[in-house]
């Protein structure tokens, strides 16, 4: 995808700058009536930066003194600095007068405008950005080491308090810190696995739809075959036969989630390949590969983005289920699923161990579902209101 200006690149903002995208998105296109929302969001953003800096001040001061600083702390510091930079840029932009909307708007600009009007979807976007931000800042924000075991007599099964926001578990570990670190694992697994499955699904669907004939028959029969297995069954069989590890979980989640996208893309490609612009491209003497990947596939991206967003939520749920069964992320590493499983035997006496990681999953998945629904409404002309 190099050379030509590509609309979908503009639609997906790069991750570290994402906070700014929320700013821009919330500010509205025709500025006047939305000043207050913009100011509030700016204030919230700065509040976030400052509180992040304050919370991590102690740790930041301790940095140069320590011999070895883990890489993720540096990443967190860089993310914080980047966030502050992005906020500064957003503030400057907000203070300057805005250009009027252009006359000829592209499909993505129109969709963006619809999306911004959907308050629930914007809330989903905000929560998602916040979550990814938190995953970057975790080493600075977490009050305790997620693996540090407390005093086995005095600090295990402590109920939630100001010192331990979500209590402690059976080894005296701080549940809040573990939920924060678990967010990193769960969100990254969701992101990478969906990346794999969307790429695969788009590839398979595009090939099947474009070439038709035996390629189509073969690929679609294979898709049917994979769909016949309940996903969790296939996952536990594969993962249990090999050694469970983080990368295996990511890979297998990716390899078992592409079928929906493949069917979706195939349907789109089937209708696109009969259109005039494809004929024109062929008449110009372009090869199949070029027509398919430069002209047909970019036009299928809107539904793929929607299904990817909804897919991240589903993947986080599936990963949590796997970890709950003990086949996903392995115990010393915290993941929301294995934390819920950890608290299972102490359900009555210490409800907080299971409840908080579970709530974290619920809110994350709700955010992704709201975002996906909003994107679907915005990107599909038939659903626009």
């Amino acid at each position, binding site marked *: 995808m190099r050379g030509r200006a590509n609309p979908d690149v503009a639609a997906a903002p790069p991750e570290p700058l994402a906070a700014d995208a929320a700013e821009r998105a919330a500010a509205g296109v025709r500025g006047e009536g939305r000043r207050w929302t913009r100011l509030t969001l700016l204030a919230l953003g700065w509040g976030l930066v400052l509180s992040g800096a304050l919370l991590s001040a102690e740790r930041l001061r301790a940095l140069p003194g320590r011999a070895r600083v883990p890489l993720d702390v540096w990443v967190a510091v860089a993310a914080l600095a980047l966030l502050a930079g992005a906020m500064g840029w957003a503030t400057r932009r907000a203070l300057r007068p805005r250009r009027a909307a252009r006359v000829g708007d592209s499909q993505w600009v129109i969709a963006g405008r619809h999306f911004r009007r959907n308050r629930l979807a914007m809330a989903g976007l905000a929560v998602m950005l916040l979550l990814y931000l938190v995953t970057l800042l975790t080493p600075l924000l977490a009050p305790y080491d997620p693996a540090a075991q407390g005093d086995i007599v005095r600090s295990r099964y402590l109920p939630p308090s100001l010192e331990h926001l979500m209590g402690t578990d059976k080894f005296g570990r701080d549940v809040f810190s573990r939920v924060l670190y678990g967010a990193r694992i769960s969100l990254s697994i969701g992101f990478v696995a969906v990346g794999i499955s969307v790429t695969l699904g788009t590839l398979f669907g595009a090939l099947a739809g474009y070439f038709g004939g035996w390629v189509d028959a073969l690929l679609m*029969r*294979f898709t*049917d*075959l994979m*769909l*016949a*297995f*309940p*996903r*969790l*069954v*296939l996952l*536990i*069989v*594969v993962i*249990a*036969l*090999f050694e469970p590890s983080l990368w295996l979980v990511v890979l297998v989640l990716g390899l078992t989630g592409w079928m929906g996208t493949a069917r979706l893309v195939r349907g789109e490609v089937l209708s696109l390949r009969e259109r005039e612009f494809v004929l024109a491209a062929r008449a110009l003497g372009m090869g199949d590969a070029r027509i398919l990947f430069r002209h047909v596939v970019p036009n299928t991206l809107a539904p793929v983005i929607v299904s990817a967003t909804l897919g991240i*939520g589903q993947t986080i*749920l599936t990963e*949590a*289920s796997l970890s*709950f*069964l003990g*086949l996903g992320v392995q115990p010393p590493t915290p993941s929301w*699923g294995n934390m*819920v499983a950890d608290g*299972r035997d102490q*359900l*009555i006496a210490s*409800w907080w161990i*299971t*409840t908080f990681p*579970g709530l974290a*999953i*619920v809110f994350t*998945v*709700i955010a992704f*579902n*709201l975002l996906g629904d909003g994107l679907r409404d915005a990107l599909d002309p038939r659903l626009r209101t």
Partner: protein
Amino acid sequence: MLAFLLRRLLGAVPLLLGILTLIFFIVHLAPGDPTARFYSPNVAPEVIEQMRRNLGLDQPLHVQYVKWLKSFLTGDFGYSFGQMRPIGELLPGVLWNTLQLTLVSLVLIFVLGMLIGIVQAVRQYSLADNLLTFVALFFYSMPTFWLALMFILFFSLKAQQWGWPISFPASGMSRVGAEFLPLHAQLWDRVVHLVLPAAALGIGSAAGVARYMRGSMLEVIHQDYIRTARAKGLGEARVIFRHALKNALLPVITLLGLYLPFLLSGAVLVETIFAWPGMGRLIVDAIFQRDYPLVMATSFVIAAVVVLGNLVADVLYALVDPRIRAE
């Protein structure tokens, strides 16, 4: 109709063969083999070697494949090392347990989901609609296993602790000594044991069905023939349930086939949590015991149930919509 049915049945055959092949290669490409569970310092390597020869594991892969396929097709599922019983003897009871759970859950999903969806569509944009949409989203986004644990916490453990008038059993299919009770009491006992697992399994999907039903009902409600029905003076209930519902149901039927794999995935978790002796729990146990033949047999049976479920959904769809049969 008969031609349609035959066509669909024939279409399922290569699918089932493909499933068998896939399972075979997944299991055989993995490191380790069924004898791995017998490795120990007390077992001589010659014994393991003999065991491999007895099981036919020393033969080339394609020979094993053909043999395995042949025995599967003749209904011989092999022998479970974990349970020390022939799998063919084990499976029917376990499958029936899972079917009880899944079917009850399926009924729950569709009744609950459809009712909620209809209410939402009829009262579009009302407070009830918005509230139900949000509640549905909340349950839809909830992990099954966590919901199951919360159900146990509130409706079983805390309910007893706080002395609520009703509390449900948190595990098993029947209480101790249930087989000595009269039939109706046994049945009631089973129903009581089914409440929590079926609800935990179904509620998330019910929310999905409700979302779908709302959309499909809204599409139908705005059509001309509904206006005609109202114009000729029919009561609202009759318009909705007799005229609109029939057409709104069409797309929802396809969900039946779609939700079956989803339910069976959920059953793995729910059965593990509620100690329900079904397929899901069997496969998890088999995996932790490295009981390869049982893993292969159960995953095949689960996949076959999904294929069958899809077939039933297709046939139902063709029954209610004549356009499909002609395709």
